[in-house]
């Protein structure tokens, strides 16, 4: 019946369908989100300022200019062009303190993400691979940590360990741990049912290979997004600890710590009150904007919000 029929063979001259590369596709999706790009640009500026603080900042952050207590910002009446954003109650240059403060905030944020991420992923994978005894106990432990409000738990840990830079990192990391464990476990569990995992298992892959090479890369998208979001909440928590006097101790400049004493100047020096907080808000907002962009670009199905 099919004398005239030809077999269809792939034709070398036929236009080959081209699909955009994953990286390009990711960047296209990410750059379409204007908020995410704005957040990225702002964060690049902050990171640059933090790294090159000694070059960028006009003064030392702890140098006190006693002739210039509570000088308003340059554009205000009584302001001085020497102190662009004014000075605080001890005559320290606010701009320099904010720039050096970025170092503290970014460092605490980044370290606590790393300190929470690594054990969180390992515990989450363990819980997914051994759902019975080990997984059960890990998850109950995480339930316990989740039952305490995050800030309260951080405050309690710092209250026990004592205030300071390292202890802030530990406290914030412990608070962030359960979310990583749960997230890793949930995505690993759903991957474990897929055929490719079974295939790898049938091929004789060992446990570590299954965990870290077969399953983990496929759980990365939600983890990356969550790490971004928890970076921003770590900055918020660090500054809250600082505000309560339990974080980085003065005179080291830290955004939250700078606000701790600001309440007394509410009526006299608005810049001392508003500028450090505005900096925190902008930094956190930028990271969250990037997080939203990452989520939309990496994993459109991801709906987690906090």
């Amino acid at each position, binding site marked *: 019946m*099919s004398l*005239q029929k*030809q077999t*269809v063979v792939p034709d070398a001259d036929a*236009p080959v*369908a081209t*699909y955009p590369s994953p990286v390009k596709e990711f960047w296209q999706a990410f750059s379409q989100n204007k908020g995410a790009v704005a957040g990225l640009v702002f964060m690049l500026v902050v990171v640059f300022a933090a790294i090159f603080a000694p070059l960028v900042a006009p003064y030392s952050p702890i140098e006190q200019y006693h002739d210039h207590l509570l000088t308003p910002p340059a554009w205000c009446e009584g302001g001085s062009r020497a102190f662009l954003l004014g000075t605080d109650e001890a005559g320290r240059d606010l701009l320099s303190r904010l720039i050096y403060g970025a170092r503290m905030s970014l460092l605490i944020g980044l370290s606590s993400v790393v300190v929470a991420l690594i054990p969180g992923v390992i515990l989450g994978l363990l819980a997914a691979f051994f759902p019975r005894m080990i997984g059960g106990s890990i998850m109950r432990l995480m339930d316990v940590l989740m039952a305490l409000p995050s800030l309260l738990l951080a405050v309690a840990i710092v209250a026990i360990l004592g205030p300071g830079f390292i202890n802030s990192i530990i406290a914030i990391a412990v608070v962030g741990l359960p979310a990583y464990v749960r997230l890793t476990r949930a995505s690993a569990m759903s991957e474990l049912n897929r055929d490719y995992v079974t295939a790898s298992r049938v091929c004789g892959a060992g446990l570590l290979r299954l965990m870290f090479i077969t399953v983990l890369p496929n759980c990365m998208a939600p983890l990356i997004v969550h790490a971004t979001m928890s970076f921003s909440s770590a900055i918020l928590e660090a500054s809250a600890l600082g505000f309560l006097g339990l974080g980085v101790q003065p005179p080291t400049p830290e955004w939250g710590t700078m606000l701790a004493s600001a309440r007394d100047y509410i009526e006299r020096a608005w810049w001392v009150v508003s500028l450090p907080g505005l900096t925190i808000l902008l930094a956190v907002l930028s990271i969250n904007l990037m997080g939203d962009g990452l989520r939309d670009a990496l994993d459109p199905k991801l709906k987690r919000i906090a």
Partner: protein
Amino acid sequence: MNLLEINSLSVAFGSTEKPFHAVDGLDLTVRQGEIVGIVGESGSGKSVTMMAMMGLLDGQGRITAERLQFDGKDLLTLGARERRRIVGKDISMIFQDPMTALNPSFTVGYQIMEVLREHLGLKGSALRQRALELMEMVEIPAAASRLDAYPHQLSGGMSQRVAIAMAIACRPKLLIADEPTTALDVTIQAQIMDLLVSLQQSQNMSLILITHDLAVISEIAQRVAVMYAGQVVELSRVPDIFLSPAHPYTEALLASIPEHSKGARRLSTLPGIVPGHHDRPVGCLLSPRCPYVQDSCRTVRPELTTTSAGAVRCHFPLSGKEA
């Protein structure tokens, strides 16, 4: 007289510079009391066409048409409010998966009565009475007790019967059934199809049946439109299309029905898949898969041309002798 007339309907998604035409210049007419089948692979634009006509695309797709007329009314110029007076009453639709088509938070009875209240203004015991009547019409056993059931308490077949009851509640002139049996067990499929046909006859409705099951079409439809990649490639009366398909794609579809390939050792298949967003060919959309492809097919896109039996979109339509 034509109940529904669609001329050159297009639906575009995506950006205006690089639109993706899910439906591309579609023509279709449906007469009063007629059953028309639409067949094609997944992604060929069957459902989008119907959704566009009913105004269910929700502003995402851009709809253009030369003519989109139902029962003497121009659906293109009709305002949203007037269109809603027709949709659900004179045109209604049932969907593929009955398990997700019903709202899980409301009882079955509520969801049927909602249509009656909205379009016919029924109230009180008359409302409940009519809902019960409808449940009995679609042959739901123990209808009275099932009125207060939640959708998740019903089986797929029962849910689809409820969906049909909702669709025929206001005696529509046109019922669109979008793969109404695909999601159901094989044993239930025939029951639902019989129910649809008997309701179509008793209510004298027109019925558009979207399916990829050619066997069903051959049994119940009067005419059939074959769709491929958003276009109608062949339009024909029912016995003719099975006896002498004019389009290579139709021929391939028929060859893939087990009953048509008796004697052959393997079931015939058409290699490749429907072109997506990134790989639409320049010429005839079927050209990369067509066994009869010629050079001109790869460069020039064919138009839909009228034939004695209907219409076909092919540079070299099959003569029909060989089928």
